[in-house]
């Protein structure tokens, strides 16, 4: 497992994984995912958020999923040009800014179709008590 700082940035220099070598069922993490008040506000500003709870206090739900997906893509070292095919998410409770979540992920799909690799990554986000606060499922097309 690679260590990460409070907000999930990977800090080891271990080689990245090669998705072509990974089998379905491969487990990623645990790694830390959480957004500080400043990071949450920055996300809210970037997406032009005009409503919803104050992003300085509550993390926009999709920001949690985006943060987790970025960590996974970084860990996998996916090639530039990787794009998103589909995305699912379930939110079980709001996440406060500064709250530290632990994410784990499983490779649910990994196949090549018409020259492009489709990878499906299911993530689970838990709070400090181990309670699941959100889940997500992301399918990306690698180097289409």
């Amino acid at each position, binding site marked *: 497992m690679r260590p990460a700082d409070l907000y999930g940035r990977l800090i080891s220099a271990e080689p990245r994984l090669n998705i072509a070598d990974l089998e379905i069922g491969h487990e990623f993490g645990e790694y830390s995912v959480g957004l500080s008040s400043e990071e949450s506000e920055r996300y809210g500003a970037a*997406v032009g958020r005009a409503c*919803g709870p104050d992003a300085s206090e509550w993390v926009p739900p999709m920001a949690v999923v985006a943060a987790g997906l970025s960590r996974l893509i970084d860990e996998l070292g996916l090639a530039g040009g990787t794009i998103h095919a589909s995305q699912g998410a379930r939110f079980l409770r*709001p996440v406060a800014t500064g709250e530290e979540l632990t994410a784990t992920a499983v490779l649910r799909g990994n196949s090549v179709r018409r020259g492009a690799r489709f990878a499906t990554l299911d993530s689970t986000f838990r709070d400090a008590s181990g309670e699941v606060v959100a889940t997500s499922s992301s399918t990306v097309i690698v180097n289409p």
Partner: protein
Amino acid sequence: MTGSGSEPGSAGVCVGDRLPIIRRLVTQEQVEAYARSAKDFNPIHLDEEFASTSRFGRRIAHGMLVLAFVSEMLETAFPGAYASGGELSVRFKAPVYPGETIETFGQVVSMEHGVEGDGVRCTVGCRKSDGSEALTGHATAPMVVERVTRLSR
């Protein structure tokens, strides 16, 4: 919500009600701000030279940026409830290029009754100004009577 659907459910939401529209001009500056905030520096979003060699021929917005607008629509329609039991599932159908204006759409398609409580099921998506769909899917939100926003009917 705007609607012309069936008899209202317990929270006053009807099948056929439309969710509030979020309309946004997506700019390259916004894409770059999103890349920094989400730490997603894929060159297909940021590097014009790289993107010109892709099948899209130019830079595209992050799918998760476009999806954030749909998520905001659901937060607006179902304040509190969406973040406390809501679900969302979408497919990305077409890229959004910086400079394009897009708008979200959503409509209540059914009221669901489950062991965990009642819920509202909606179709959702995001449409470009030429009418093409950038993403489509569906979402559910638990029925929390006092928290469902009713914009208009």
